[in-house]
């Protein structure tokens, strides 16, 4: 298309454009109502004192006071640290386990549905349900984890009431729950690798491990990247599974940032401070989301 034509739109093009923006309107209206307005409110709240348990104080403007408070709040620092640890353990964990599941699932099965459902079920299960089920696994007297320890002649462990073990149990639940989604994404990636690559490598005498290192991993890199970013975006928001398994305990040792924000606002009724914490979290998550978007940026009008 030459520039001359591009600059002067035909009436048809102009009406198409108008229609196009009209068709985008419902989606953006919904986003404005459910996301943008609340985020604006959130930012406003974060600069005000707003404590529902102290209504006589009103809601005066306090500048950055809530943010300064966060700087000195040990429980907030711990929640951030726990969230980071969850990310550092469960994101690579889910990708490694997911890759293993994908490699196992990428076989020429005669009956496909048990494998497919085996990957879909953990994905479709609500996070809270996964949390409850794993809580049951790690129950002291009747849980399966301690039953296995006893079976091996070992002492049963206080899985959910000692800090380190509780963190481990929660990580296991998160990895189980999220690795199947990773496996589905990686499985799709595996299936795009042409069989002929492996046949050629076979002819050249490459071992299975070499084939995996030299063909599978490099070809999977884009799929792994997508899975990593997506797991990270959800891991920042970790809430449901620790909520169901330990509710942040023992003490606050398994409490995540999302759980602390939830407690600050819903249980302690401190909307101002909770909002400031939520703004901080939102900034971190926006940075990571933008990394993802930079990766997927594409022009939908073209192929």
């Amino acid at each position, binding site marked *: 298309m030459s520039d001359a034509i591009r600059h002067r739109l035909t009436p048809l093009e102009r009406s198409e454009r108008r*229609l196009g923006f009209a068709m985008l309107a419902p989606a953006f209206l*919904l986003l404005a109502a459910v996301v943008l307005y609340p985020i604006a409110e959130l930012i406003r709240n974060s600069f005000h004192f707003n404590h529902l348990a102290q209504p006589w104080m009103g809601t005066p403007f306090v500048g950055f006071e809530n943010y300064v408070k966060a700087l000195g709040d040990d429980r907030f620092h711990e929640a951030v640290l726990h969230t980071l640890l969850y990310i550092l353990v469960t994101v690579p964990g889910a990708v490694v386990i997911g890759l293993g599941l994908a490699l196992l699932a990428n076989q020429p099965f005669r009956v496909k549905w048990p494998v497919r459902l085996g990957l*879909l079920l953990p*994905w479709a299960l609500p996070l809270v349900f996964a949390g409850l089920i794993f809580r049951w696994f790690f129950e002291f007297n009747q849980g399966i984890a301690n039953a296995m320890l006893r079976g091996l002649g070992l002492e049963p462990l206080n899985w959910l009431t000692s800090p380190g073990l509780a963190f481990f149990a929660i990580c296991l639940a998160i990895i*189980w729950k999220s690795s199947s989604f990773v496996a589905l*994404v990686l499985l799709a990636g595996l299936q795009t690798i042409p069989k002929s690559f492996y046949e050629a490598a076979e002819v050249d005498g490459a071992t299975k491990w070499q084939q995996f290192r030299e063909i599978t991993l490099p070809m999977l890199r884009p799929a792994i990247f997508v899975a990593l970013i997506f797991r990270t975006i959800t891991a920042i928001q970790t809430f*449901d599974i620790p909520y169901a398994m330990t509710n942040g305990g023992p003490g606050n040792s398994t409490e995540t940032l999302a759980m602390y924000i939830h407690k600050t606002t819903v249980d302690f009724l401190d909307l101002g401070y909770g909002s400031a914490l939520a703004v901080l*979290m939102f900034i971190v998550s926006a940075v990571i989301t933008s990394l993802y978007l930079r990766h997927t940026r594409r022009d939908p*009008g073209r192929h």
Partner: protein
Amino acid sequence: MKLLRNRRALIILAGLIVAANGFFPALWILFTSFKTEVELMRVPITIIPQAPTIENYIRVFVDQPILRFLFNSVVVAVLSTLLCVTCSALAAYALVRLRLPGAGIILSVLLAIAMFPLISMMVPLFQVMRDLGLLNTWWALIFPHAVLSMPVCTLVLISFFQDIPRDLENAAMIDGCTRLGALWHVVIPLTAPGVFTAGILAFVNSWDEFLLALTLSPRVASRTLPVGITLYQGEFSFPWPIISAALIVAIVPICIVIAIFQERVVSGLTSGGVKG
């Protein structure tokens, strides 16, 4: 020959591992749900229930209004799915077909907004819904849940719409169809599998959502299943057989949905590459 048989056995083993990993937890609570409290006390623990009882299932329906939770979940999931797919389809079509300037950037902005963390929206949404008098109503969840799945639905629909040749719509429009008429009568029927896939993903996302459902529907009668299930635990007691039975009741509907539509779900998850 023996080598071939070994290979076959290895393949089956690989499949069994994947299936067991996925099914084991659900199977375990299925077994638990038929046990009595007494049997659970036994050491060493039993695997298969020795004296199966349906007492726990009766308690599930007696102790909490679980059918009400189920009904709330269905209504919220169905209506938010319809809203999400409608908005996403209109947006995806506009982005694919209508030669909008900066379509790529518009898409990025849409995705970026829709991916904001829920916890950040929770408090202000609570205030907005309270001010509008929508707390404890289905609407308080329907609108946010529709946004939750918008990125995945839009991406899935874009990938399907791109595959429809322009000529088909042009032919329809020459025959007197409007743009929207062509979308409704030509594009949507041809991309029905994609629309359907987007719908299932939106349905599952809404069905599973916990944080907003917990916050925006504080009244028992307006809770959805994921939140309702947590009500079976007492202050100090954790009646595991009843909770297991409740989990089974809650899991069965979603299992049926994904079992029927498994291929659609897989293709949707991987073409969008996302879970919202």
